[in-house]
């Protein structure tokens, strides 16, 4: 399997299309970080360092810049990297006649699919690690923000979360490359799925939650209606990898974020209660963030595993045919 991984890694890092999409991701990330950095700099200059205490560095990832934050950008466009890495991984080999050559060597069939998947994950991990390190360096030099140990651990967890999320897309891309013999068809299917899952599914979830828990008067929602809607929305979001990633990344990168349930409780508190809470409650610890995020993280990991297992089973069952 090591031979397959080595070959795939060499292919990925030498592939023009991967280098193009990676450069694009890096460029946009730097732009977003630069804009976020400027905004943070402004707040710090105006003496608002207390407001940002404990999360200044992580704001580089979460502060909405021109359009969205870096974490949201990774949620929306990070999948493209996985899709580029995987959409032709099997059918290209099949079409160029190298698959039967590989399989006629003394290696198990699962070593091929596992090797390709692991090589993709390693590529994604290396790309993200490089990106995060560069942004950290930018934070140090450009904004003068030194990350605390807590922030670095949170960033590492976010990196892990991103690998799991992009692993789902990689599994999906490999699955398409097994299902479709034509590379063009699998590319089209990958693009269609990306658009649906990332852009349309959130709209469908919103509509679904509204249908399950409608508001009598949307302008003035009642507390009970708001609770029902939020719960319905949360349950439906469990079916969306992008939604799970967004929720989990907010939780990991922002110590003051408490998830929809707690946010709802706070919203329903009296004004005095909210004031008291804000006075006495700071950011939550990494452990607490992890506990809150764990169910979402596990479901996201299940999505990734499921996509890979489907690819695996389908690939193992497919026969090499003469025609």
């Amino acid at each position, binding site marked *: 399997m*090591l*031979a*397959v991984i*080595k*070959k795939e890694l060499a292919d990925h890092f*030498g592939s023009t299309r991967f280098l193009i999409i990676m450069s694009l991701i890096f460029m946009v990330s730097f732009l977003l970080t630069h804009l976020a950095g400027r905004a943070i700099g402004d707040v710090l200059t105006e003496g608002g360092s207390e407001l940002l205490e404990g999360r200044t560095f992580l704001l580089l990832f979460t502060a909405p810049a021109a359009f969205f934050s870096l974490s949201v950008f990774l949620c929306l466009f990070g999948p493209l990297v996985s899709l580029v890495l995987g959409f032709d991984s099997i059918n290209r*080999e099949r079409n*160029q*006649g*190298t*698959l*039967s*050559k*590989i*399989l*006629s*060597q*003394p*290696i*198990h069939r699962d070593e091929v699919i596992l090797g390709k998947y692991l090589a993709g994950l390693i590529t994604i991990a290396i790309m993200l690690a490089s990106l995060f390190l560069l942004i950290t360096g930018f934070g140090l030099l450009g904004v003068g923000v030194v990350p605390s140990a807590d922030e670095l651990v949170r960033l590492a967890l976010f990196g892990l979360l991103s690998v799991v999320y992009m692993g789902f897309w990689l599994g999906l891309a490999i699955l398409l490359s097994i299902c479709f013999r034509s590379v063009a068809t699998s590319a089209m299917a990958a693009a269609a799925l990306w658009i649906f899952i990332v852009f349309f599914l959130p709209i469908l979830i919103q509509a679904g939650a509204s249908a399950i828990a409608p508001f009598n008067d949307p302008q003035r929602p009642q507390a009970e209606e708001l609770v029902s809607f939020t719960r319905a929305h949360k349950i439906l979001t469990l079916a969306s990898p992008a939604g799970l990633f967004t929720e989990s990344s907010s939780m990991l990168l922002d110590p003051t974020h408490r998830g929809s349930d707690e946010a709802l409780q706070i919203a329903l508190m009296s004004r005095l209660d909210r004031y008291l809470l804000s006075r006495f409650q700071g950011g939550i610890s990494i452990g607490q963030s992890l506990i809150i995020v764990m169910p979402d993280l596990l479901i996201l990991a299940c999505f990734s595993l499921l996509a890979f297992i489907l690819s695996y089973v389908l690939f193992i069952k497919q*026969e*090499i*045919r*003469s*025609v």
Partner: protein
Amino acid sequence: MDELKTTDEGSGPENGAGAGEALGEGVSPRDGEALKPSSPHSAPNDAETPAKEDSSEAVILAAGLTKRYGRETVVDNLDLRIERGDIFGFLGPNGAGKTTTLLMFLGLTLPSAGSVRVLGEDPVKEPLKVKSQVGYLAENMGFYGDLTAYENLSYVCELNKMRDYGEKVEEVLGLVGLSEVAGKLVSEFSRGMRQRLGLAEVLVKDPKVVFLDEPTLGLDPDGINTMLELITRLPGERGLTVILSSHLLYLVSKVATRVGILKKGKLLAQGSIAELAGKTGLEADLEAIYTYYFRGEAA
């Protein structure tokens, strides 16, 4: 049948000498039942019945090997015995089941029924043991065009978990006459060079048996002669058994010591050209023998 190409080349009696043993007719390898005619034509079925024979020298021993895709039977109850050192010509038109049979020998396609032993191993249960001793040149062998010839071979060596393979790679590149272009990208290779590189990939792991599926496909006359010369040298110089699948009779008759004739998945006959000539009462002419079995009538 119509797709079959024949010429008069190489059909002389010198090609009839083979290592095959006398054919045993009429007994099923597994259950002792009399063999039914495998063709609607009146041609006799001279396919050997090897399963109960001594397999000590048999490199490949298939019994009742069958492959079905849905309702279509691609390989039908194939009994076959190939001896060590043979150059066995697997004959039949396109779609006769030659490639599927080779894929079953390799364990890449699972048989629907029957069994096969390659070098004493079952490719279904022990595919790795079989694949480590068998080299396979597929009909449309693919290469990584963005890698050099040397790198393509190195990858095959790594898949075979070979160590210090540098010298071996250079040796096989020299054998197929590609030493000069070892550092050239394969995307720049001609068809003939690719076929020779394919043969090098087959040989680099020092196999005991090689399966060559239409190895001369798309080659010019010079390329064909070079390839045939290389194939002929394999048993003597490297102690290999060669299974050569082709629909080109004149090519097979040039190099094969034994042949098997396949039609719609059924093996109509197997043996040396001389043996088959003796059975049919024809001259040792592969084309005539083929026509006899294939059409079910005397040529």
